[in-house]
């Protein structure tokens, strides 16, 4: 395989219900930096049915080219027609880097496509940069330049590893939502548009979608919150979460929680922060009655300011908190809410 034939930084522009997911713009933002280092450009790959109208939005967020595969088979996400489309684009256009969001779609599409085009895939990356592999010269081994270095947490957040894919192309990564920064939207910016269709022939791998059931009501996304007031087992009951909600409301924030809260049925899983929940990085994170197990900390430690309230002075949450209150949350939280109401005139 001639690795030098592979050029350009490509991102998978995820859309759901013909609306582009935020992760697509975040990937373009990071791809622009990588492309600048490699002296190349950024191509967004848009797959769907009747999606051509979404091209300009990708351009306005920085895509230089958009490859569109528009086909009725791609109306709703299914692994097979989507993997066929993306793998065909890779085989036809030969990108040097292919980035995919680490979403419930991307973490299915990415592995399938990487196996189909026989390359490596690094999951859930939080840092991407261009550099040398090996990082330092090693006697008897060629040091390759301009490699994609992909950094990711592993082991429940206990370790971080930096991974390269030196001998296969494209270099593929899935990237955690909410970590990379999107560029400011540049109204009227245009991209070169390439329409491509590899042809779709349904086979046994095309599953049948019987039903699409959306979550009832509008679930607010805790990943978008600037302020999160998060409660744990120590809150004690579903009823007591009202106190957490009141504090969140007065601050204009959202409620989130630890895994124990979900397991007790006090809040649905959409509100869970941590290794098996969501990764959040709000401006302020209140950890109330949360002991701070490593799995929880992995999902919130990048928050700008962490405030912990816990009655156990040895709780590990205090190891990551900027400000820690050792005390009874049942007394401190309502009093804090009242003080904030008075201060903010609410």
């Amino acid at each position, binding site marked *: 395989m001639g690795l030098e034939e592979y050029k350009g930084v490509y991102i998978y522009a995820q859309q*759901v219900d013909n609306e582009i997911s935020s992760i697509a713009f975040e990937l373009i933002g990071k791809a622009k930096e990588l492309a600048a280092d490699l002296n190349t450009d950024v191509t967004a790959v848009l797959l769907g049915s009747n999606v051509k109208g979404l091209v300009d939005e990708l351009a306005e967020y920085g895509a230089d080219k958009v490859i569109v595969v528009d086909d009725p088979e791609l109306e709703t996400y299914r*692994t*097979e027609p989507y*993997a066929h489309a993306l793998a065909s684009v890779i085989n036809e256009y030969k990108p040097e880097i292919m980035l995919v969001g680490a979403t*419930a779609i991307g973490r*299915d599409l*990415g*592995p*399938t496509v*990487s*196996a189909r085009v*026989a390359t*490596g*895939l*690094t*999951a*859930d990356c939080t840092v991407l940069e261009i550099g040398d592999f090996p990082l330092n010269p090693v006697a008897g081994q060629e040091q390759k330049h301009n490699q994609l*270095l992909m950094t990711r*947490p*592993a*082991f429940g957040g*206990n*370790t971080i*590893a*930096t*991974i390269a*894919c*030196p001998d*296969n192309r494209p270099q593929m990564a899935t990237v955690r939502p909410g970590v990379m920064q999107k560029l400011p939207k540049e109204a009227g910016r245009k991209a070169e548009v390439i329409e491509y269709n590899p042809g779709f022939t349904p086979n*046994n*791998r095309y*599953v*049948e*979608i*019987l039903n699409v*059931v*959306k*979550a009832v009501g509008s679930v607010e996304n805790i990943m978008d919150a600037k*302020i999160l007031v998060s409660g744990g087992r120590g809150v004690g009951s579903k009823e007591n979460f009202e106190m957490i909600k009141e504090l969140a409301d007065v601050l204009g924030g959202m409620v989130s929680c630890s895994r124990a809260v979900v397991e007790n049925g006090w809040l649905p899983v959409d509100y869970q922060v941590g*290794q098996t929940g969501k990764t959040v990085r709000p401006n*302020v994170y209140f950890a109330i009655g949360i002991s701070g*197990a*490593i*799995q929880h900390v992995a999902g919130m*430690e990048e928050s700008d*300011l962490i405030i912990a309230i816990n009655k156990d*002075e040895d709780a590990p949450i*205090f*190891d990551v*908190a900027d*400000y*820690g*209150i050792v*005390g*009874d949350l049942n*007394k*401190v939280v309502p009093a*804090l809410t009242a*003080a904030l109401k008075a*201060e903010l005139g609410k």
Partner: protein
Amino acid sequence: MKIVVCIKQVPDTKGGVKFNPDGTLDRAAMLAIMNPDDKAGLEAALRIKDEIGAEVTVLTMGLPKADDVLREALAMGADNAILVTDRVLGGADTWATSTTIAGALRNIDYDLIITGRQAIDGDTAQVGPQIAEHLGLPVISYAEDIKVDGNSVIVKRQYEDRYHEVKAQMPCLITALSELNEPRYMTPGGIFDAYDKEVTVWGRADLKDVDDSNLGLKGSPTKIAKASDKVRKGAGEKVTLDAAESVTYLMDKLKEKHVI
């Protein structure tokens, strides 16, 4: 029907994490459990067995001590167990791992393959879909409910804000979420029987249609450039005050940081 459940022995991430000099994980030095998503997958298979009858085979790739999780699976009710172990398979990334497991599965009859969504050590969620790709099977990831319907399965496939009810022809591969069910405990009789049963042990030579260049550390497209323990930001201030003083303290800090 025949179901194969792929399970993995994983270090309990609550314990300490250790590395070999080459940056790969020193799994031998850590406490080991059956990966939670895989255990839910096994439970799903055992429930199908209870309801409509099935032969359940568990398969793992790992060090010889991974025998422990196979015995646990037998004690829960699995019928057969296969351990794929060989020095040349060590240090594999998800590509090489899925290639290996696919090579083992080519020796077995199956209607349904179940894997966990992801393991708690790597957290990649890649091996299940990659096995399906190597075997040319339909894959349904992130399953929160599984029902067998004749020659098909009907699965609730979870997404962030919705689920799809999906029907796939068997044979197919499903990756299971730990939310799928509450796995059963081993029974005392089951534990006793588990140690009487044979665990089939396969090595490199038993893998079908697999090239050496796709196995182990050497056959892994992804290479570790560096690995290290996470450097955490240090603890900040911790105060023990009464409720009123705590509130004053927090209000001062929130003003100082321009939150209010």
